[in-house]
């Protein structure tokens, strides 16, 4: 049975290999069938594995299957071992399900693209890498998946490579995540040197035994791993790549934002939670970074014109919530928000992609409007996704997950009122910018005509995701209303529960407060963007708005801090003596070449003269020997 687990990442990998080798030679229907079908098989295997896992809980809380020994040298042994526990079960469930729906959607979305096989090959590799990442039982294998995800994001963001700007965005994503990856690999070295293993389970046990609470080694290791997580998850210092990553096709954005890539950082922190628990300072940093990022991205999302960029900033903001949850020790709340977010964010990207597709690549939300009647299915699904993102109380999944985080931010022993305040402000911003989007795109006067209706293959995934966006919240209801703990009950087998500060305010108080905040945001959006557009316009013209629009000018800051000094140094370095030496070799060679090419002047008599001189020369030398 365990071998089924290995099939889950292998099936998409096989799809990648097949499509990259045979993609040019098989018909398009076949490409779609293989590309989406293999993910679909993986998505069907996942519930089977989940049932096996839940019905007969394996000893030790995990199913492991070792395929082969990968590296065995000196003290380092790393095997290709896939390990399924409650945490990775949640992740593979989301990855395969959402990934499959996105693939299904792509079959129609990309139908007219010339790089059809290439697209599905990359997408399959992307899903496969992410599955390897979350199923890896040692950090080295995890790093393989980690890098695979980075590579695929590069390939897919720059998918339409004929446009230089897309290539630039792809390089930006690759290089910025590389900074985080470098920190992470240094962290792996540190862990291996001190704990002599890279197996995650052993690592966590030994770290807890060998390293005391708040020891400097644990702090460094956690900090370096956090660096990797920040790069992949686009959190505060390294968040600038994600908005530009919108250069790729919409399904790619959906895949990056919902199922793969950006949630890798969340997974990494949850997976190595023992380390973070040992380093309270770093954990506080995680929470603080999450809180700051969600505010920053929320303000930026409020000013964007591009439909996909709004969603990109909202992703950064929502990942900020997950970091906030992880930072205050509410592990399962963070993972719950990840799952819910995957559903509604994939839905929003797919619906947004459908809008963009039927409007002939129109991205500017100010040029849209009144699409409610023209694209009813897209409107309703988009509305459900938006409601979930804005945490509309009681009916949406987003409400339950976000409310949980806010509550923990206040009442967990690692939380504090500041984090809670940031989260609450973020919630207000979220509902404001989300419904700004909804009102601008679907309400108001009609400015643009859709060319056609999205087809069946695009609508079905959207409807399924919409259902999940509404219903997924009911598997984890707060103590004040029903107290269903299916999700956290599952995760409690491996993740520690939250330490609460007792005698605090009741949870209901927070729920009411966040509901009020959410509804206020929606009403304000209605007021500003639908009733009195002049208000919004006047804000859009301010310098502050432009500052937010540029993503708080982080690009310019990095330009000044890093790029310019580097270019300056390179400029100086360009003329050092080694370069002079090297270019001198080249120049001398060129000079000799031009000298020799003078002799090849096409004049026959000149050549004969060369012959004669050569003969005379050789003969004279021979004489004198």
């Amino acid at each position, binding site marked *: 049975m365990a071998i089924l687990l290995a099939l889950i990442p292998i099936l998409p990998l096989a799809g990648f290999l097949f499509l990259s080798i045979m993609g040019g030679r098989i018909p398009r229907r076949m490409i779609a069938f293989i590309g989406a079908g293999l993910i679909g098989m993986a998505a069907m295997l996942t519930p089977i594995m989940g049932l096996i896992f839940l019905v007969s809980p394996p000893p030790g809380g995990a199913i492991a299957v070792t395929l082969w020994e990968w590296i065995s040298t000196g003290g380092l042994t790393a095997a290709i071992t896939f390990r399924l526990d409650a945490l990775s079960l949640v992740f593979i469930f989301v990855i395969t399900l959402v990934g499959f729906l996105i693939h299904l959607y792509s079959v129609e979305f990309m139908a007219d693209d010339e790089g059809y096989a290439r697209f599905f090959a990359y997408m399959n590799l992307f899903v496969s890498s992410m599955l390897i990442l979350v199923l890896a039982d040692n950090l080295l294998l995890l790093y393989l998946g980690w890098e695979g995800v980075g590579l695929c994001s590069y390939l897919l963001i720059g998918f339409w490579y004929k446009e230089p700007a897309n290539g630039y965005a792809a390089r930006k994503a690759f290089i910025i995540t590389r900074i985080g990856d470098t920190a992470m690999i240094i962290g792996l070295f540190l862990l291996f040197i001190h704990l002599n293993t890279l197996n995650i389970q052993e690592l966590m046990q030994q770290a807890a035994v060998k390293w005391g609470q708040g020891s400097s080694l644990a702090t460094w290791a956690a900090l370096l791993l956090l660096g990797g997580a920040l790069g992949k998850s686009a959190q505060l210092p390294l968040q600038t790549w994600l908005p530009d990553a919108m250069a790729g096709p919409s399904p790619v954005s959906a895949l990056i934002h919902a199922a793969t890539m950006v949630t890798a950082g969340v997974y990494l922190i949850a997976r190595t939670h023992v380390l973070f628990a040992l380093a309270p300072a770093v954990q506080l940093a995680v929470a603080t970074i999450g809180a700051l990022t969600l505010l920053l991205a929320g303000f930026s999302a409020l000013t964007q014109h591009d439909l996909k960029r709004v969603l990109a900033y909202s992703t950064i903001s929502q990942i900020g919530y997950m970091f906030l949850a992880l930072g205050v020790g509410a592990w399962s709340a963070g993972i719950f928000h990840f799952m819910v977010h995957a559903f509604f964010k994939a839905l929003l990207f797919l619906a947004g992609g459908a809008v963009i597709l039927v409007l002939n690549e129109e991205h500017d939300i100010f040029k849209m409007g009144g699409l409610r009647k023209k694209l009813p299915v897209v409107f309703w699904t988009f509305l459900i996704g938006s409601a979930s993102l804005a945490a509309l109380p009681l009916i949406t999944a987003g409400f339950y997950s976000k409310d949980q985080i806010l509550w923990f931010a206040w009442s967990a022993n690692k939380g504090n009122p500041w984090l809670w305040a940031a989260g609450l402000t973020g919630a207000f911003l979220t509902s404001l910018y989300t419904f700004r989007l909804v009102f601008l795109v679907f309400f108001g006067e009609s400015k643009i005509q859709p060319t056609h209706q999205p087809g069946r293959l695009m609508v079905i995934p959207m409807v399924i995701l919409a259902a999940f966006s509404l219903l997924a919240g009911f598997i984890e209801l707060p103590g004040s209303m029903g107290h269903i703990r299916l999700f956290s009950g599952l995760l409690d087998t491996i993740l520690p529960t939250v330490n609460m500060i007792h005698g605090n305010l009741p949870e209901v108080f927070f729920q009411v407060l966040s509901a009020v905040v959410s509804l206020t945001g929606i009403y304000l959006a209605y007021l500003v963007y639908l009733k009195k557009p002049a208000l919004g316009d006047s804000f859009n013209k301010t310098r502050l708005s432009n500052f937010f629009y540029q993503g708080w000018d982080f690009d310019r800051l990095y330009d000044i801090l890093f790029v310019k000094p580097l270019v300056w140094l390179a400029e100086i370095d360009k003329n050092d003596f080694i370069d002079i030496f090297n270019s001198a070799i080249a120049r001398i060679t060129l000079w000799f070449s031009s000298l020799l090419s003078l002799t090849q002047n096409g004049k026959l008599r000149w050549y004969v*003269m060369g012959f*004669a*001189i050569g*003969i*005379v020369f050789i*003969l*004279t030398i021979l*004489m004198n020997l």
Partner: protein
Amino acid sequence: MNTIFYIAAALALISTGLAIAGKNAIHSLLFLILSLLSISVIFYILGAPFIAALEIIIYAGAVMVLFIFVIMMLNVGMERETEKRWLKPRMWVVPLILGTILLIDFIFMLKTMAHEETARQIILPKQVGVSLFTTYVLGVEIAGMLLLAGIVGAYHLGRQKKKVIHRFLKKEEIIEVPNLKK
């Protein structure tokens, strides 16, 4: 006999020199034929009567006639002015210097050569023929192929472009070698 050799040798050298330095192609060819005849005499003296005959028949006969044909076909004026322009006195300097050095090399080499008595014997055509068709029969075959290739090549290269009677039947043909510099 020695006197005849020296006379023939001097004649050969002088007529070759005149042929090389001449301004009129036909005159030069005639000088060359004279040179070939003297060389043929030398061959005869050296005891190779068959080669002497071949020299006259093939060189002075066939090859030179070929030259004359070509000169006549081209029908160029062979103006003395052009040749004069091409043959400026200073052009002789470097070749002559080279020639002198080479000559010195020759003399030096011949001086250091060990002196040997020459076996004096006339080699008759029959011996040449027997050797040609026994020891060197493979060489003869190869020479035959070379001549065949020469014939085919000469035919191919020497063929003139077809005359086109009507301009509508004319095929565009690029004669000019494309200038690669652009």
